[in-house]
């Protein structure tokens, strides 16, 4: 299921040209692991928590994904990436193979920065998205 959800996330995010126009390339979207030396700006998403609901006989998942953009330009640049991510995800329906996505909602906003020793700053902006799936 993680693979199917990751695939659906990648398809949704990489399909948003308004988002990919802001990134280093159309493939600068990573699931958890960012390749060393990857060019900025990029998007990272990962499973931050959650699992099976176990409240009904059918199988349901209640998951939290952390999706954010990283930029070396400015906080505003990271914020613009985040705004496009939000447009693509909040209240939308993902095509997750073998599952029905009946809930996708942003729950919290996060932003910050990392000052690096070489004087650069890495800015980030994103949010936690709750995704609920029902086994189809």
């Amino acid at each position, binding site marked *: 299921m993680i693979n199917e959800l990751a695939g659906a996330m990648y398809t949704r995010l990489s399909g948003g040209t308004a988002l990919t126009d802001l990134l280093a390339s159309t493939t600068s979207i990573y699931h958890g692991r960012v390749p060393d030396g990857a060019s900025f700006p990029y998007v990272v998403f990962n499973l931050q928590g*959650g*699992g099976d*609901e176990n409240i009904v006989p059918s199988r349901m998942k209640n998951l939290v994904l952390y999706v954010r953009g990283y930029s070396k330009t400015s906080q505003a640049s990271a914020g613009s990436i985040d705004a496009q991510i939000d447009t693509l995800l909040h209240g939308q329906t993902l095509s997750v193979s073998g599952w029905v996505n009946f809930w996708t909602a942003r729950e919290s906003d996060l932003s910050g920065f*990392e000052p690096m020793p070489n004087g650069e700053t890495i800015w980030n902006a994103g949010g936690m998205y709750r995704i609920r799936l029902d086994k189809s």
Partner: protein
Amino acid sequence: MPTRAGGFEVDTRKLDKLLQELEPKASRAVRTSAFAVEAGAKVRAPHETYALRNSIKTKTNYEGDPLRAIVHDEVGYGIYQELGFHHYISGQFIQNPFMIPALEAERPKFEKAMRRLFK
């Protein structure tokens, strides 16, 4: 106590008693779940020196509210492990979430415990 509503007098004594009994039970559920989140976070926390793991603590009755509890760590880098960071030398992206996974694992049990209070 009896309450007047329009031309009716409603005897809310039973309801008042239920409400009185509810808070201590809800408080117990909050505390139980808070300590479960602490335990879950400690299991999941990345460890080399165990400083992060050992720093994870729970405060119950937070700010005098029996229905509030917080689970937190006391090291400066905990938030970076939770949300991800770029290594200061290699630039490698690293992330080891431990708090939200623990919270989300406990969520269904907490919701069930709270639902039970109203049965």
